[in-house]
């Protein structure tokens, strides 16, 4: 965020000297007339502010087909892998991940030259049960070296960090298989760990990794994954847009439909680069919060939580009344730059 230089400006009023701004007494600025009616052809959707200007948001739609993914689908797209059983009786889950350079239209008319896992931001949501054997066939189809670094227990040579073996840095055209047991249970994540790290993450190389407890979690009606992140479109190491699951304002433009009384569980991961914290605020409701998902007992009953980068947690809630309810970062700057969504609660 750039600070405005109004004070400097007034100080240097003298520059206007040559200019000599004389007419203050003769032309009094007319104040904002609130009674004037104004048609706003661009107030889209259900959110309107009458004649007080448009609300922040995008007009039009990005090309989801060309992008190859739609944030609405990502919400419930859990990849359980190819399942088989090992001789020792352990469940084996195999996943194929490819690192790809891909232009993604993030706001209508602007493409972001992203680095992706499987061509999408965020990468696939990998899901397993505690104790399963995980085998990830990672190949690098891009022109930069990349890796996959998982949060969780695993041997050092499976850590995906340069210097820890062949899995630490996979050259373009090469591949590597990461293999480890899924533990501990909870909500985790993975991301590229090749340096410069901030750039490799900011370009889009991250995804959620869910490890369910052996006995499972109490049943709910709907489960969703939300990965919060930023988009630094001009590479100045400052985010220009903020989003959940790839596209700014997507769930504002396409509210998530749920029903009154339905139990909702959200797997929320923060992968925001460059900014210190991110947050999640739910309107007209409270949720149980399970930090990192490593306990089955919630730590808090609240309506707002904050997360630093790579922090994550599980939210559970139910709506009592039908209506439109906002959810967004309560770092409101992020909300107005794209991290804003709506639940449409149907009766």
């Amino acid at each position, binding site marked *: 965020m750039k600070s405005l230089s109004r004070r400097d400006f007034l100080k240097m009023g003298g520059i206007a000297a040559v200019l*000599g701004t004389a007419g203050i007494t003769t*032309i009094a*600025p007319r104040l*904002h007339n609130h009674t004037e009616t104004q048609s706003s052809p661009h107030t889209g959707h259900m959110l309107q502010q009458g004649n007080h200007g448009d609300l922040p948001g995008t007009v039009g739609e990005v090309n989801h087909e060309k992008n190859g993914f739609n944030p609405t689908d990502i919400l419930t797209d859990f990849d359980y892998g190819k399942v088989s059983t090992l001789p020792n009786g352990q469940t084996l889950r195999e996943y194929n991940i490819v690192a790809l350079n891909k232009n993604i239209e993030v706001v209508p008319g602007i493409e972001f030259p992203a680095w992706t896992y499987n061509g999408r931001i965020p990468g696939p949501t990998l899901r397993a049960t505690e104790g399963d054997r995980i085998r990830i066939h990672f190949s690098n189809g891009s022109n930069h070296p990349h890796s996959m670094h998982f949060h969780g227990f695993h041997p050092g040579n499976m850590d995906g960090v340069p210097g820890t073996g062949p899995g630490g840095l996979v050259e373009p055209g090469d591949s590597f298989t990461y293999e480890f047991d899924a533990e501990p249970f909870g909500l985790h994540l993975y991301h590229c760990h090749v340096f410069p790290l901030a750039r490799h993450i900011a370009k889009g190389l991250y995804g959620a990794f869910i490890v369910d407890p052996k006995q499972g979690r109490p049943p709910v009606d709907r489960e969703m994954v939300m990965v919060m992140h930023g988009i630094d479109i001009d590479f100045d190491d400052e985010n220009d847009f903020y989003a959940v699951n790839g596209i700014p304002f997507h769930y504002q433009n396409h509210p998530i439909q749920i029903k009154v009384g339905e139990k909702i569980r959200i797997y929320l991961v923060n992968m925001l680069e460059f900014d210190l914290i991110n947050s999640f605020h739910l309107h007209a409701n409270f949720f149980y919060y399970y930090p990192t998902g490593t306990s089955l007992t919630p730590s808090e009953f609240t309506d707002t939580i904050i997360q630093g980068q790579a922090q994550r947690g599980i939210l559970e809630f139910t709506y009592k009344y039908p209506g439109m309810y906002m959810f967004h970062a309560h770092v409101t700057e992020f909300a107005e730059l794209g991290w804003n969504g709506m639940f449409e609660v149907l009766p």
Partner: protein
Amino acid sequence: MTHPTPHTVTKRFTFRTFILLLLPVILLAGVIALFLATGGGLNLDPAAPVENLNIERYSLKPNTIELSVRNTGPDELTIASVIINDAVMPFRVTPNATIPRLGRATIHINYAWSYGEAYGIKIFTSNAIPFEVEIPVAFETPAPSRTTFLGFTLIGIYVGVIPVFLGIFWFPALRTLGRRAMTFLMAATAGLLIFLGLDTLAEALEFAHQVPSAFQGIGLIGIGAVSTFLLLEAISNQQTSVSGNETQRRLTIAFIIATGIGFHNLGEGLAIGAAYNVGEIALGTFLVVGFIIQNITEGLGIIAPVLRDKPGIGKLALMGFIGGAPAILGAWIGGFTPSPILAVLFLAIGAGAIFQVVYEISKLIRKDTERQSMPMTVFSGVLTGMMLLWVTGLLIK
């Protein structure tokens, strides 16, 4: 002809001359075609497109911000996103979001801005190149209504017309001065003009930075100033050779001074109008007083060359009008259709005129000092003139 040529060759424009003139042009076309076809060996594709968007003006209306932009980059570009104070805003572009090279467009944003607050606007093109503009103090941009029109007129009268005429009112008193005092006054006028000329040039340079690079602001200053200087020089030489009359000559100089000061005041008016538009209103009535005091010396400068003559009241009034009234015109242009290109051009013309006049006055002074020795008069006069503007300038800066 002092050296007649032995053979009188009739130089006619023949077909052969025509072909010879054309030959380099044809060869040039060939070289350009070759370069474009082969890339000249520099086969470099830019990693990122080169784009340039000039945000020429913003205007605020209730619940609306409008940005006038011009594409000064080498290719067409498309406006893709507008962010105001870190909020992505819906917007509309007329005539089209895709702007051709050197084309203009207006971006309309339906935004509930608040009086007196500051706004930072970032525009992204479809190639994710950001362009920023800042609104330091938001208030409604004066529309060309009768009230604002009269307002700008009044500013022009206060800053330009009144002070210049007040200066001219010194005429009867100064006529009674002796030759030495008059020479001193002429030198002081030269000092005033040198100071004004530098000031005008500095202003032109400042505006030149706002001119889109394609229009080469600094080059415009050169064209405006040098051509004005030489044109006035030619006119003044013609006047002298035609009439040979000293009185007539001094009158011409007075008119040229009036014209130069007129251009200077036009530039001042432009700047005032533009400054008002962007809300540089932190200055106050005190400064108007400062301007009146400073500009009164301009009137003095106009009449100095004709003090020993008897120009009619009509002529004096005309000089005052030429010197002061352009401030009104400038305020209108600056207030309603600010254009840095026009501002640069006007200011450059003003600078050229002023420096030419200084040259003319120096010739007059030289004539005076030939008849009577006045060792320190010119030095003290010029210094007094410059110091006068510097000191009164303290009131404004």
